[in-house]
Every structure is written in structure tokens, then in C-alpha cells.
């Protein structure tokens, strides 16, 4: 997976320093969340994501998984409580600082959010173009990644001409191409069969091995069972840590053991 190894994303020294010194990538303290007039979605939620960790986020439909992710990619603000992202209180982040912050977070949206009039290649290339990556590198890495997710024959296809599963893989490629510090994925395997789902999970694990903190919201129980990662569970607007049966073993590098042959 050379599209990761080459380190396409230009990293600032400051970001490295912050990361090196940081204790947590994400830290929630007593977070309450509800949308205007709606029911309480998150009640007194506190948790941390350590750098380089890999978590699943489970919970029934409507349990608030997407909202929890949204708070992390600065798509919404909590009603109360404290959220720190890369060791910065997000309430203190000015609008002008948000783009740089968001570029460190890769997001796979549940509804993909692809740009409809851009080809698969151009959609995936967006984060790199925003970061000002050289076009030659883009032409090299983006097709490689798209080939890896099984879309080598669809580089110039518009999203609308592709199936839901194919669009989802474009969305995933777009989220990981910039090698973000934090990857948030909302039901990233909702539209693909198990064989492709497992392949996509390997992609996230590969990214995780290079230091990216990963959080995957899913209700695919078989997938959660198959990969041995700690799990955060949302129910009744509260978040709990679920210990895996194999929790006695170190969470990483136990990953390899969890892989099917």
C-alpha cells in the first residue's frame, strides 16, 4: 500500500510536536448533546481515544453514533461538556483554524457525501488538492488506492453511475488518502458484502499501523467480532466501554491474530 507509505500528506512540524506530546487524540468530558428541540442524544458522555488506538462504535440505529462522530469532525457543537481534539479545546477553535484541524481528520460519511459532478478520481483527490499536493503525486497515488478498493476500472466514473457499494469505497478512499491523524467512519461497510467489508477493514488497520487513530461506527456484529478491537457502545444516550472476550490479550498487535487465514 504505497499510497500510505509515501506520506502524501504534508505534515507540519507543529502537528508532529502536538501529536508527540499529546496524551489523547480525542477526549470527551461530560458531553451532553441534543439538536434544537429534539431529544437528548448524548448524556454525560466521557471517553478518550489514545493515539494509535482502534475502536469500534456500536449501538442501535438512532443511538447517536453519527452525532458522536459529528462532534469529532467539528460538524456540530455540544450543548454542554468539554471536547478536546488533538489536545485542543474545540470551543476555542476559531473558524479560520477549522480547515487545518479538519484536514487531520478523515471522515467516511454514512451518506458518502461525494461531489456529484466530479469523477471517482477527482473526488478522492480532493483532500490532496486542498492540501496543495503536487499533481504528479496525485496521479500516482489516487489510482493506486482506488485499485486497492477495487475501483480501478472506474477512475473517471461519476458517482451517480456507480452502485452504493462502489460509492462507499470512493468515500473511504477519500477519507484515508491524506493519511489523517484521526479516521472516523460511519457505517463504512453498510453497502458492501462481507468479503469487501473485510478488505476495507484491512485498509483501516493498515492506516492504523501507520499511527492513525481509528473509530468505526457500525452495527455489523460479525465484523466487530471478527476484528479484535475495543468497543464503545452507545445505548440510552450513554456511552460505555465494552471489554472484548479477548481483552486479556494486548489490544495491539493482537490484530494480526484476529485476521482470518
Amino acid at each position, binding site marked *: 500500500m504505497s499510497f500510505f507509505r509515501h506520506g502524501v500528506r504534508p505534515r507540519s512540524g507543529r502537528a508532529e510536536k502536538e501529536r508527540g506530546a499529546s496524551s489523547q487524540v480525542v477526549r470527551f468530558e461530560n458531553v451532553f448533546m441534543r439538536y434544537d428541540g429534539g431529544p437528548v442524544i448524548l448524556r454525560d458522555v466521557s471517553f478518550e481515544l489514545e493515539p494509535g488506538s482502534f475502536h469500534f462504535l456500536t449501538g442501535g440505529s438512532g443511538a447517536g453514533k453519527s452525532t458522536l462522530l459529528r462532534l469529532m*469532525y467539528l*460538524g456540530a457543537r455540544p450543548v454542554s461538556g468539554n471536547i478536546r481534539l488533538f489536545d485542543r479545546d474545540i470551543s476555542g477553535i476559531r*473558524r*479560520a483554524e*477549522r*480547515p*487545518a*484541524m*479538519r*484536514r*487531520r*481528520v478523515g*471522515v467516511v*460519511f454514512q451518506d458518502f*457525501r*461525494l*461531489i*456529484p*459532478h*466530479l469523477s471517482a478520481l*477527482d473526488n478522492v*483527490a*480532493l*483532500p490532496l*488538492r*486542498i*492540501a496543495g499536493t503536487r*499533481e504528479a503525486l*496525485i496521479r500516482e497515488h489516487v489510482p493506486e488506492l482506488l485499485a486497492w478498493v477495487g475501483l480501478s476500472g472506474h477512475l473517471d466514473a461519476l458517482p451517480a453511475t456507480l452502485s452504493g457499494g462502489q460509492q462507499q469505497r470512493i468515500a473511504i478512499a*477519500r477519507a484515508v488518502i491524506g493519511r489523517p491523524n484521526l479516521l472516523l467512519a460511519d457505517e463504512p461497510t453498510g453497502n458492501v458484502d462481507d468479503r469487501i467489508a473485510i478488505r476495507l477493514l484491512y485498509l483501516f488497520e493498515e492506516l492504523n499501523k501507520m499511527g492513525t487513530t481509528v473509530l468505526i461506527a457500525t452495527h455489523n456484529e460479525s465484523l466487530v467480532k471478527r476484528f479484535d478491537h475495543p468497543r464503545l457502545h452507545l445505548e440510552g444516550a450513554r456511552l460505555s466501554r465494552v471489554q472484548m472476550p479477548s481483552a486479556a490479550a494486548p489490544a495491539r498487535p493482537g490484530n494480526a491474530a484476529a485476521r482470518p487465514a
Partner: protein
Amino acid sequence: MWGRNDLALARDPSTRFLPGLLAVLVYLAALAAVGGLTAQGFVSDWDRRLAGSLTIQIPPTLNTGDDASRAASAERRDAVLRLLKVTPGIADARPIPEADSAALLEPWLGPELVRTLPLPLLVDVRLAQSQPLDRESLAERLENAAPGTTLDDHARWLADAQALARSVAVTGLVVIALVSMAAVLAVVFAVRTGLGVHRNEIEVLHLIGAPDRFIARQFQRHTGRLAAVGGVIGSILAIITVIALRWTATDTTAVTGPAGFATLIASIDFGLRDWLAVIALPVAATVISTLTARASVMLSLARLP
């Protein structure tokens, strides 16, 4: 042509009218500029030609018919010419032949009347560059030499012409200012519509870390291109119009002889300044549209939460 970095964000029906509209606006601005520059050109031309000259008018003696009065007239003329010769500050004095004066008046009075009417004698005076002329003392001495003689330095006529030309030039500037305002409003409208149409895409771009200037760049590039296309078309149409006007006017002059307005238009000299104006206008339209699009996007996006 559009380049890989073009997200086609700005390319939607809301911008389709921009090239046509900007072509019209640049066309109007170009004609206003050429008109203003031409008016100014006339004035400075007249100014240059008349600044170094005076016209002295010796009134006719009443009976032109008989020899005595003709002799008296000649005597008055000679007295004036002698006086002018010794006056410091005058380079040359040349009486205008009677036939020339008559030809000037003929279009207004008709050939019959001109032949019978007593016409004043005119003397065309060139002033010396080196020495100033004392106009008041000259006028006084002329009055003594030939009573009724007047001295015209064209100041009043020139002042009127200048005032007229200035108002033409100011009108041109006002037209250009209004046209610029219309261009700005059109671009703002197109950009706002585009932002509305692409609300979702822009939200996605923001969420994946695009700064406002990245989004603004998409709009400003596209708008700039449309403005350049429209501007060039407008300029070309303006050049064609001016050339056609001159051609028509020259044609008219050839048929009817020199007459007023047609002569003025025929004498429009499409010079370097006019070319510069006509080339500068599409450039200005492009720059104004680009900056307006950028400012418009940045301001609109800054208002988002």
C-alpha cells in the same frame, strides 16, 4: 482547458448570462471611453492650434460698391498691417483674402447675399513664442489706427467648446462608473446563486478541510474567465462600431462637403490612447469580476456558522 483543479463549482446556469452581460457593459464602457477621449482630443487640438493666434477684424466701410470706400478700406487694412509689423510679440500677420471670408459665410448666407454684403476684413495673426504680446495696448492702438477694429483671441469660443468637451468626458466617466457597478452587481448575483446551488458540495468541502479561499478560488477563476470572454467580445464590437461610424461619416463628408457633425466624427483619430482604453477595458472587467467574486464568496462563507 479547465485544469484538474477545477471543481466546476461555479459552472452552473446562474453564470451563463455573465459573458453576454459583460460584453454589453464593456461595449458601452468602450464607446463612452472613446467618446470622452475624442472630445478631449478636440479641445487640446483646438487649444494647440488657436493658442498661438489672434484674429483681427476690421469693420467694412458702409458702401462697398464705390472706389472711394474700397480705397478707404484698403488704407485701414494697410494701417493695421503696418501697426502689427512693428508690434513686439507678433511673428506674422496675414490678411485673409476676401474670397476666403466669403466662402466661409456662403453656406449660411447664400452666394447672392455674400457677394453684395459688406464683409469685414480679417487678419490672421501668429504670435511669437519668444515675446509676450501686450493685448490691451495693441487693442488701443488698433482702435486709433482703424476705429471699430476688434481683436479676438478665441478665448470665449474656446472656453465654451472646452466646457462642452469636459461635460462629454465627465459623462463618459459616469457611464464607465455605472457600468462597473452593474458588472459588480451581476457578478455578486451570479456568485450568490452559485453558492446557493452548490450549498451541499461546499459543506462537504468545508468538512474535509477546505479553507474558504480554496472555494473562493474556484469561483473567482471561473468568473474571471467568463468576464474575459465577455470583455473581449464587447471590445471587438466597440472597435467595429467606431470604425463603421468613421466610415459612414467619411462617406457623408465626401458627398455633402465639410459639414458640422459628420466632419467631427470623420476626424476621430483612433489613436494609441483609444487602443489602450479598448484593451484595458476587458482587462479591467476581468480584474473587477475576479476580485468581486472572491470578495463575495469570502463574505458569504464567513457568515456561515
